[in-house]
């Protein structure tokens, strides 16, 4: 798994590549927690994530709750069908906001 974090126009882009499972979730968590202070508007690009285990969902939930508590927002982009199914089954789909492209997610931030 590879994580790239960059900030543009007040939006933090987190791009992840590879599987987020119990072996890699810890690394993702520490990378995100490093940046946490500056995190407010987050666009997470999951285009290249094929597998998301419950440990990975936990990290997403953690980020979601942190952002929620300080008025921030996390938008997920390009979530694969399999991951979408997992999110439906576990109910996360009711809370996470999913977009099909980065542009759409950016539009959402511009409107608010």
């Amino acid at each position, binding site marked *: 798994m590879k994580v790239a974090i960059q900030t543009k126009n007040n939006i933090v882009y987190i791009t992840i590549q590879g599987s987020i499972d*119990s072996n890699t979730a810890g690394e993702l968590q520490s990378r995100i927690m490093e940046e946490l202070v500056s995190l407010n508007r987050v666009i997470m690009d999951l285009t290249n994530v094929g597998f998301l285990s*419950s440990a990975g969902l*936990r*990290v997403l*939930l*953690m980020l979601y709750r942190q952002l929620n508590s300080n008025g921030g927002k996390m938008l997920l982009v390009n979530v694969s069908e399999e991951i979408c199914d997992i999110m439906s*089954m*576990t*109910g*996360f789909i009711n809370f996470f906001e999913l977009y099909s492209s980065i542009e759409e997610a950016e539009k959402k931030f511009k409107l608010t």
Partner: protein
Amino acid sequence: MFRNLPFRKKVLLLLFSSIAGCVIFTTSVTVFFTEKSTQGVIDDMLFSVAYGAHNLVGDDYHDRIEDEFSISPEEFELKRSALHEFANEVKVKEVYSYIIYNNELRWTSGSLSTDTFFIAYQGDREKMKKIYFTPIEENRIVFNSYEDAYGAVRSVFVPFTTDAGTRYVVGADYDYEEVKSELTGIAIGFILFGLFILIVSFIIAFILTNKMSAPIKKLVEFSKEMVDNDYNLTEYDQNYLKEFSLKYKDEIGILSGSFLYLQNSIKHYVQDLKKTTAAKESLESQLRIANAIQMGMLPKEVDGFCDHNEFAICGFMKPAKEVGGDLYNYFMIDDEHLGFTIGDVSDKGIPAALFMSMTNTLIKSIALTGITPAEVLYRVNNELCKGNEQSMFVTLFFAKLNINTGHVEYANAGHNPFILLDKHKQAYQKLYPGIVLAAFEDVQFKNEEITLSPGDTLLMYTDGVTEAMNSQQKLFGEERLLQIFNSDVNVSVSIMVQSVIQGLDAYVEGFEQSDDITVLALRYH
């Protein structure tokens, strides 16, 4: 061979062979060039002697020779003594002259007392043609070295032609033995000198290498001692090494310093390793105990359910690590209702196990109040959300069976659907998905219901079953799970659970289990 020699012997051997090589080379070169230059001087001298002899004998003498009687013995003797005196004076072995007469060599004059006029050459004819005929046939001066019974000789043969056309050769022999013994003397001198140098340098090298290798030997001793003493060195040894590193400013000093450093690092490393191992062992034993406690939390078949003829229930949990994050439980809520649950905490290991035990306790205590499954989940969820900083969450299914009617009321919090096995079919029951516990506060859950007929079975599992992987990274899958029950649905629930576990084991073929595995089966009678 050479590689196996100790360092010191290598140095000595190299020194010995290089000095010996030098001596042999210098001696040969010197002898070679000395001989060359000596020969040059001798040849010049012989040439002059030949000319002197030619003057003594004279062209006229040879012009008069026609046969063996041309010169009287008196005249020959006169010439012989003159030549003899001359030869002595110039320190040559002998001088002589000869002519070619009827294709034969005839001595015409000589310095030796044994010489006789016009006597024919007595020796090897081939040699004669090769050496003695060349000066006359090719009309050139010939130098020649040879060795016979009398010793080594250097000769010159100078051809002369008189005004009358008589051709003869004047020869002079030099005793080469002297030169040879001179050269041998030089060679011996050189070799003796070389030997002297060799011995002296060998002694010096012996002492020096002994001194040089002593600290290395000491270091070797220390290293053996260090290994024997569990990587510890006595204070005396350590001071010794410190002194070494200060005293020697060369590689030995550096080596001593790094030896101390190495010994120190290894010692600490070994200590750390011992500590870590002890800690690991203690942790492992704690984990073993934790595993026993966790397993103790899960109900056993025998836990007071034998006297219920209305249903049979059996569960099994196999954690991926020592402790797991899966849970199942069943208990009587009142005389009429059985509560049962299965759940899966996100992630695994110790954090998941702690969360699992908390969830397990909460479910039971809240369910015992008799409220509906959806209400149970609502309350458990809110309890779990409190202080959940690590954002752990649980997927959980909770149900309540009326043991008299077979009516089941259930609610789901993001858990996998259960399989319903009745007389006609085996199928996954479509559940309202719900939302996982501990993630979002104040979420509502939905009560659903189903009525079981006698013989119907509910099979619940966690995703450790369907997502079990084999060595080809292929998942076990929901379809394969369903097929296990195709053959016989009338076996007991414990055998059903067992057949799921066996089916999984056969599928993964020993590939490492990556997630906790839990199966729970309930049959209504």
